[in-house]
């Protein structure tokens, strides 16, 4: 008798294979249950273990599929709801990609997967795109797999300024996907005088109409830059405290009213917020939807530059496939195709030239392809160690919670 063909889903397929390999009798089942219970009890007790998890065995050679967790509106999509560049990737390499908009926020995504990561288990994704500081934390904890650069020849196209970052020297564990600036935006109709620096946000006629981001590194980064601190360089608690004091004053005076994550866009749209610290890509999209209503500037004393990066979670068996995916997206033509849709900064050299062929107007947009002067004025918030991250987060969140 011929057996039924295995289902298409690679996870289920693998499970069935595994089950077929180990014929389960009642005794083994009971033993397994016992072992499982013991393991669970041990896991509960040993969640304090300091040992870093080890990488899963790579099955990329047999299993041609990738599960990719990413943010919403962060890849090209056509009217039918499919992803043209991913379809082309499949045609080219035979690797199918299950793309999920699973990341809504770095913290909540991390909250969902951290226990599995600590145990070295599969989190249901072979690659996820997370922001610098979260990647920094995951690398510190040993939750990511080391990438084999030999499999990513196109990595030579990575912007030189991003090739070496303090949290990941030599980009051994992470590769940028898209990036952006945090800068200042204002409503051109209601506040025609515009903004030039963070200090302009504290103007009396903006009282109660100012919004800032709940992302600590962007809001505090901009205030620190305004106070003359090089946020990429060597600064310590004193500089941070000086900036926190300013921030706290503006919040308690009622100058800053809205402190939000992604939902700050609604406040700009309904004009609760007339001037704000914002992310560049959002303003491009908002202006496209509402007719060029907002101005955007990277403040003269500097704005922050952040990136979301590909990382391979420690429990993923598909690292080699992911390396092929990263290599594919580092082809300038593909990068330009994505950039034309998402309006963020692509880290791929040559994408601007490729964009000229798709949409010359977008290629000229300094928010998507920043000129050298803008890039020189954008700073990456330096990596924090565990203690600093805890201290600074506590101070920042205390103001957001109004416990002062």
């Amino acid at each position, binding site marked *: 008798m011929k057996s039924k063909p295995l289902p298409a889903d690679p996870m289920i397929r693998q499970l069935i294979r595994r089950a077929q390999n180990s014929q389960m009798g009642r005794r083994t089942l009971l033993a397994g249950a016992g072992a499982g219970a013991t393991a669970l009890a041990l896991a*509960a*007790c040993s969640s*304090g273990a300091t040992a870093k998890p080890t990488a899963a065995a790579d099955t990329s050679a047999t299993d041609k599929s990738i599960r990719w967790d990413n943010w919403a509106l962060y890849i090209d999509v056509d009217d039918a709801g499919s992803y043209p560049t991913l379809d082309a990737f499949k045609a080219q390499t035979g690797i199918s990609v299950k793309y999920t908009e699973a990341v809504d*926020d770095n*913290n*909540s995504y991390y*909250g969902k997967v*951290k226990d599995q990561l600590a145990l070295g288990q599969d989190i249901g994704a072979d690659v996820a795109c997370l922001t610098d500081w979260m990647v920094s*934390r995951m690398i*510190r*904890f040993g939750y990511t797999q080391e990438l084999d650069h030999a499999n990513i020849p196109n990595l030579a196209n990575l912007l030189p300024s991003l090739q070496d970052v303090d949290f990941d020297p030599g980009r051994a564990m992470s590769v940028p996907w898209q990036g952006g600036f945090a800068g200042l935006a204002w409503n051109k109709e209601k506040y025609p005088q515009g903004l030039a620096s963070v200090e302009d946000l504290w103007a009396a006629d903006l*009282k*109660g*109409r100012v919004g800032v981001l*709940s992302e600590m590194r962007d809001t505090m980064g901009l205030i620190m830059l305004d106070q003359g601190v090089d946020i990429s360089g060597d600064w310590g608690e004193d500089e941070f405290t000086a900036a926190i004091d300013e921030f706290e004053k503006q*919040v308690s005076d009622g100058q800053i*009213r*809205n*402190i*939000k*994550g992604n*939902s700050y866009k*609604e*406040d700009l749209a*309904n*004009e*609760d917020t007339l001037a704000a610290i914002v992310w560049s890509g959002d303003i491009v999209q908002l202006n496209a939807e509402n007719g060029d209503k907002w101005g955007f500037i990277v403040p003269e004393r500097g704005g922050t530059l952040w990136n979301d990066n590909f990382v391979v979670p420690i429990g993923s068996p598909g690292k080699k496939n992911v390396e092929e995916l990263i290599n594919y997206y580092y082809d300038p033509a593909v990068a330009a195709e994505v950039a034309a849709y998402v309006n963020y900064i692509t880290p791929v050299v040559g994408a601007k030239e490729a964009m000229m062929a798709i949409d010359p107007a977008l290629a000229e947009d300094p928010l998507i392809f920043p000129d050298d002067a803008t890039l020189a004025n954008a700073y990456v918030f330096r990596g924090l160690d*565990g203690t600093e*991250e*805890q201290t600074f*987060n*506590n101070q920042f*969140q205390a*103001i*957001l*919670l*109004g*416990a002062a």
Partner: protein
Amino acid sequence: MAFAAFSSTAPPPTTAPPPTTAPSTDPAARRRSPVALFLLLPGILYLVLFFLTPLVSLLLTSFQAPREFGDIGQYDYAFRWQNYVEVVTTYWPHIVRSFSYALAATFFALLISYPLAYFIGVKARKWPLLQSLMLVLVIAPFFISFLLRTLAWKQLFSDESFVVQTLKALSLMAPEAHVTGTAFSVIFGLTYNFIPFMTLPLYTTLERLDVRYLEAGSDLYASPFHVFRKVTIPLSMPGIVAGTLLTFIPAAGDYINASRDFLGGTGTQMMGNVIETNFLVLQNFPAAAALSIILMTVILVIVSIYVKRSGTEELL
């Protein structure tokens, strides 16, 4: 509840023998009890797995201590009771705020819902069609997501909205004042969102209210207010108790309305928001767990005093 159902099929041996048809010596009654136990098993298993286990885990987490030289979010099991002292000293304003907002919202919801439920349950009895139509209207908001409704209020209360602009034009609001992000908007949101939970229990008791009692009261020369206070209120007490509990308990733990993304601001954060921030952003799991335990305990104490005082244990 589960045990009430259990004892009605087969009383546990400690209680007095059932009075009528089946004496305790009846072997049939004895044979039935393991069946009842067996039927209860899924429920008990469910509660142990999904209520008791997480609760124990929460309690253990709340006593965890930060690991020596540990990174963010790294804690070890210990008995660090100071966690409780720390969260209370740091977050007492939020604890007080949570319960005062919840109390205010419960009060306003009762004030709005009682006349509404009275009208539907008593006055509208003559017109069953109107009665059911109004009930549908009370429940109708449930057809739209809770989050969307709250976001809609945020839009209605925004600075450039018709509501706020009109109030400012009429000089009812100071020119630089705003509505969103204030205690008013949070309490408003809580009240609005919990009105159906207040109205429905009130309606179910008022609907059964025997109007002849009210007539008897006025026959005895009691003023309408007196009748209301001495007859209607006591008779509708079960509804009031159920409605206030269904409003107060979730309102005290609510974190949507007070969230900065919805109707709240930095000055209106409640316990739910503090727990969320500690858990997700600060990765301070012991603090989040300790606050959750405190929230549960305080609610439990308040509720048991309230139920005892209003003398309605048997109605719950």
